[in-house]
């Protein structure tokens, strides 16, 4: 959308309120709704991608970044990426935290 929703007059609308601009839902920030947000413990995360797969809003991003994690047996594991939620779209449903294999995502209260 070219301008915020509450600035549209009825004359600006397309016939039948058709959305004729594919992919413009990206401008709709569902993140406004949430009362909780996910917080990652990158030390415990094994980069399995389950959270990334399960997020119903496609709000989890895979970002490049070097992390060295110490495994239980003392081995050092090097990762070149990590997962984090884009808080503009994360609606705080907690599915990522529920599905996470290692329990490394914690839902914390959203305070602004």
């Amino acid at each position, binding site marked *: 959308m070219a301008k915020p*929703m509450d600035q549209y007059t*009825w004359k600006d*609308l*397309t016939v*039948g*309120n*058709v*959305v*004729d601009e*594919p992919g413009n839902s990206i401008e709709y920030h569902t993140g406004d709704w949430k009362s909780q947000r996910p917080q990652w413990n990158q030390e415990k995360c094994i980069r399995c991608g389950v959270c990334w797969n399960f997020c119903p809003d496609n709000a989890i991003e895979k970002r490049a970044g070097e992390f060295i994690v110490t495994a239980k047996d003392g081995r050092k594991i090097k990762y070149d990426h990590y997962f984090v939620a884009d808080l503009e779209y994360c609606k705080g449903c907690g599915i990522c935290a529920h599905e996470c294999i290692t329990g490394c995502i914690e839902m914390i209260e959203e305070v602004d």
Partner: protein
Amino acid sequence: MTNRIGMEVSLMVSEAVKLANVDVIAAYPITPQTHIVEHLSELVADGELDAEYICVESEHSAMSACAGSSAAGARTYTATASQGLQLMSEILYAVAPMRLPVVMTVANRTVSAPLTIWNDHSDIMANRDCGWIMIFVENGQEDFDQTICAFRIAEDRRVLLPVIVNMDGFILSHVIEPFEPVDQKTVDSFLPPFDPIYTMHPDRPVTMGAFTMPEIFTETKMAHDVALRESEAVIKEVWEEWGKLTGRHYTAVEEYMTDDAATVFVTIGSFSELGMEVVDAMRQKGVKVGLVKIRLFRPFPTEDILSALTKFKNVLVIERFLALGGVCGPLAEQIKAAMYKLKDTPNIVDFVCGLSGRDVPPEEFFGMYETAINAIKDGTVKEFYLWGVRE
């Protein structure tokens, strides 16, 4: 001029749909519209009409299929009645604001309970505000003509709204009447191919019927309401053109023998033909009555109705729907509301009759006339009369 032939009115409608060269028909049979879709299925099966004929499992699915096919750019038709229309209700409310020009015949039938198959307007009046254009016809010829006009109106880019053509169940749908068909060439010249603004097509993806926030919902309703109101001018334009082409002229509101009338009957649907007979008979007895017929119900032709009705002393509304627990029938209600701001209004007397196909012979009109005139004289006019009910 083409020859007049006899045909069942339902079949006339099917023939009109064929001449309109529809692409998709979604059909679920329900009495009394069954003959329409049955005949269409024959036309498709015999190769006379090149259309997709979708047999669905309910009317809810029928209208859903119509929504999809119309969105894909196909000229789309269906027919229903009574409970079928109620089952479609949810989708009726989706098709209109999505501006999908589906055309539908409703062979008006009472909604149960008690279960009944005969005619009144309880099906359509329950859906009167769903945002479709609504036309009522009085005979087979009009049904045929209006079915073709409906596609032209619906698909006009200034309109792009679905249209319901209402025909009284059995009274019209199952009666054989004379009519003058129109040839394919004439219809083709009148009805250009459907050219939608938006279609569901992978090359140009769009989203139809998307989620809307409160910030913008009211604006969507305003846009729909304005489109529906403004369609009145286009409807009249289309009717004028059809009149020039066929010699059959249609108006939103029609008057019969009103020049010197003090009292008029206001009718909708097939009551109108009967009403005209009654007017003739009463005039022979020296009673100066006339008739005003409402053909267009949505958008409500308020201006035309005011200019037609304010000339008379007494307006007797004859309608086929009981608004349970309400003030009066929907037709009288709309007329009264339209007149509210005026200083001098006629006496409006509302008669609800003919429910579930109960016969309303001409004598009943005399009875209603007498009742109305006496009540007006005595100042005892009730909000409405449920006519003919045994006390």
